[in-house]
């Protein structure tokens, strides 16, 4: 019986560190959650042309700016991974902090956007479109918040050169959050 603390990256299952396997399982389950939500939206959007009237209200520029922010944060996340592979914990931590800053920027822009929409009467109960809009964007924003918080913990350890494998794990999760937004953007902002 070993007294050593189990570390996800040292244990393996199915020829893969268990930490990474867990992240991929999370993503597989998230595909069903977000995929289900988006598929529902597409079905209702196709069956109800009047959705276009509400969709025309969303601000494409704000949606595009947030896409730019998430793509940029994905770049810093993958560069952090590259730095971790090269055992440069300080650089990885700094890049993860940039990524977290991207998450904060995204959330600030989103909150300003929602404030404008709600003040004009477009609340979650205003119409089925707005119900989908706030549910999908809200669920996505919750993932952004969770990712940013986890990233700060990972960056704290990475700065000390500890647990560098986690930089890749949070990166994989963050890129998935980016991919979800890549599909939300045309559905909620472009398809008028």
């Amino acid at each position, binding site marked *: 019986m070993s007294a050593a603390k189990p570390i996800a990256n040292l244990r393996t299952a199915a020829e893969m560190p268990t930490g990474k396997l867990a992240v991929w399982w999370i993503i597989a389950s998230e595909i069903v959650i977000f995929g289900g939500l988006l598929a529902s939206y597409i079905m209702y959007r196709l069956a109800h042309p009047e959705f276009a009237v509400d969709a025309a209200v969303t601000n494409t520029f704000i949606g595009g700016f947030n896409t730019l922010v998430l793509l940029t944060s994905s770049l810093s996340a993958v560069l952090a991974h590259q730095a971790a592979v090269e055992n440069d914990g300080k650089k990885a931590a700094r890049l993860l902090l940039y990524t977290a800053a991207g998450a904060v920027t995204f959330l600030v822009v989103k909150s300003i956007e929602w404030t404008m929409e709600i003040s004009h009467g477009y609340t979650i109960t205003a119409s089925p479109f707005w119900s989908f809009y706030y549910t999908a964007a809200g669920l996505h924003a919750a993932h952004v918040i969770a990712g940013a918080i986890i990233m700060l913990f990972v960056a704290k350890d990475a700065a000390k050169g*500890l647990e560098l494998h986690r930089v890749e794990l949070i990166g994989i999760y963050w890129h998935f959050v980016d991919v979800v937004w890549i599909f939300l953007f045309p559905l909620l902002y472009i398809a008028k």
Partner: protein
Amino acid sequence: MAKEHAHAHPVEHAHSAQHSDHAHPNYIKIYWILLALLVVSMIGPEFEIQVVTLITAFGVALVKAYLVVKNFMHLNLEKRYVVYMVSTCLIFMLLFFAAVAPDVMKQEGSGWIKPKVNVPAAAADHGVEAAHGAEQPH
């Protein structure tokens, strides 16, 4: 702290060894391609041609997602079963929605009768009127 370092070193070595067998792609170049595609997806729908909108908005979204999954998430470098795991979830989700879509989307015909939904008059007009209608006290 010393104990943590004792754990950290083998972790780092395992991490480095795991990735030593492949070169990192040019992430900056991929980033610029993604930004160019973002611009295309925003400009395309301005022509207000349905086919162009579908290609530039949704077709480009698929390409962007592919680039991120392949180059940033490195899915192509993972064990093959990870691809199967993720795609199985995606396929079953799509199968489910393909099966229920006829019921959800078709609202007429003897086999597809749905209970009538009472929609307020203002909401029936949609748009801004619907939003203001929802705010009125009942």
